[in-house]
């Protein structure tokens, strides 16, 4: 078998005296949708930002297709926890600046192709009518959709998402899940998705595998749970699927027994 696509091997991350992650190992396959789930402060966002290259690992190794990750790059697109749109740019400009920055040197996409691509993505996330508005003039859900469109626009091989729907109401969230899945299905370049979440249902609905993390400090991986549901999935139908119930119960056990252990210790 070929070497893993994204390989996290014995990774430890410390901030001064504080060890956030200790000896984390995980292989992620090409084309997989993986969720990282755990309690607040368990280091799941830290792990994501290590993969993004925004922070450096303290020890261990972290490689994407055999290349060590040392800095951020557009091959790993990112949807930040707080959308992080630039408030002085319009919806369209926020995406266009990222696209122009990424494709400036590569001359892969011609100007007209970039425009078409941005328009297609903005229509896909239903923001085309709002393209000239500033982030301050649209709703939280629309901002997050814009951030998702921006991440897809630069054609990353891996899409990283840090609680992308955390601040969004349940109804909007549900619509965003389906938008995300259809973008993921359509977009040939972006195959692999890694998402940090604390929402069990969201994780089950979207993921192929769910990585349950132990509580920090010295957080690690408790268990990796396979989601036994085939795609395409149907949110309503999923609720009546016994495999869903089993998976959810198992995840709940893992997360709450973690609490009990912490309480006892």
């Amino acid at each position, binding site marked *: 078998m070929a070497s893993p696509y994204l390989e996290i091997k014995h990774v430890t991350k410390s901030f001064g005296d504080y060890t956030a992650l200790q000896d984390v190992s995980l292989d992620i396959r090409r084309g997989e949708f993986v969720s990282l789930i755990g309690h607040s402060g368990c280091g799941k966002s830290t792990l994501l930002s290590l993969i993004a290259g925004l922070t450096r690992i303290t020890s261990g190794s972290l490689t994407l297709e055999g290349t060590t990750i040392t800095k*951020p790059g557009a091959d790993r697109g990112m949807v930040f926890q707080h959308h992080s749109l630039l408030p002085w740019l319009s919806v369209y400009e926020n995406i266009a600046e990222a696209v122009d920055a990424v494709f400036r040197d590569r001359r892969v996409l011609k100007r007209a192709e970039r425009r078409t691509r941005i328009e297609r993505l903005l229509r896909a996330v239903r923001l085309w009518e709002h393209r000239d508005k500033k982030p301050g003039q649209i709703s939280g859900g629309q901002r997050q959709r814009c951030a998702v469109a921006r991440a897809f626009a630069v054609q990353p091989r891996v899409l990283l998402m840090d609680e992308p729907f955390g601040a969004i109401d349940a109804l909007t969230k549900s619509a965003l899940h389906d938008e995300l899945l259809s973008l993921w299905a359509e977009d040939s370049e972006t195959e692999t998705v890694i998402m940090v979440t604390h929402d069990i249902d969201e994780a089950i609905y979207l993921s192929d595998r769910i990585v349950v993390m132990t509580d920090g400090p010295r957080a690690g991986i408790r268990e990796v749970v396979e989601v036994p549901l085939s795609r395409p999935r149907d949110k309503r139908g999923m609720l009546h699927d016994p495999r869903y119930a089993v998976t959810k119960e198992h995840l709940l056990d893992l997360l709450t027994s973690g609490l009990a252990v912490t309480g006892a210790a």
Partner: protein
Amino acid sequence: MSVATESQRAFGPGNGAMRRRVLATVRVSLPWLRSLGAAAAGAVALYALWELGAAISGGSLPRPGRTLLTLQALLSEPFVDRGPNDKGIGLQLTASLVRVAIGFGAASLVALPIGILLGANSLMRAIFDPVVQVLRPVSPLAWFPIGLMLMRSAPNAAVFVVFVCSLWPTVINTAFGVSTVPQSHRDVARVFEFSTFRYLMKVVVPHSLPHIFVGLRLSLGIAWLVIVAAEMLSGGTGIGFFVWDSWNALDLERVLSAILIIGIVGLVLDRAIAFVGNRFVYTEVD
């Protein structure tokens, strides 16, 4: 019914709509009228206090009515030139405004890059912040001899003083703006591989512009304060020279007229730069 609606669409709103629109206009303009009324009340109060002060001083302080007549006379021939000691108020004002434009303009051109450098580099900030803090509170006129030495001309020394004094607020506020770019914006620039130039133009500068304009506005205010004082020392031309010249001629009505003009011009400058700065204000989300 639908015919009536059609005709309304074709021939404009009916009576009810018109009335609503008029009422809406009145409602919108009410706060505006209110502040206009308040300003008028302030002017009346100033006039009354001034009249009272003139009465108490027993005639040493000119009365407002006579001062306004003098002001009117000054404004009736603003660009008259009858030799070095009798130039119209418009010529004097222009001389001062040109000096402010040169001094403030040059200071801004110097202060912006320095501010960006200090804001971007914490070591630079640590080195130069004490220097700025020591030079900033120095009285403008203390720079005048240095200006004379460097420029070898009294009017140009006034420009130099304006230059020095309008550096600091712009440097300090620009540095503040640049040093407070949020981590989330920096991360966006890193993930999407922004070049240094793009990062500067699309992240650092837009984030800092409101702060930069606060600095520019403070600097311009100081420049206008300083030019009057500097021209009293430098002599020759300018609104400051005009004030001092009028005092030497014991013409307090002209002095008071000049004070009114200086105040109004200062207000206009301040509002103008605030108007430009407001175009760069953005709504921070999160």
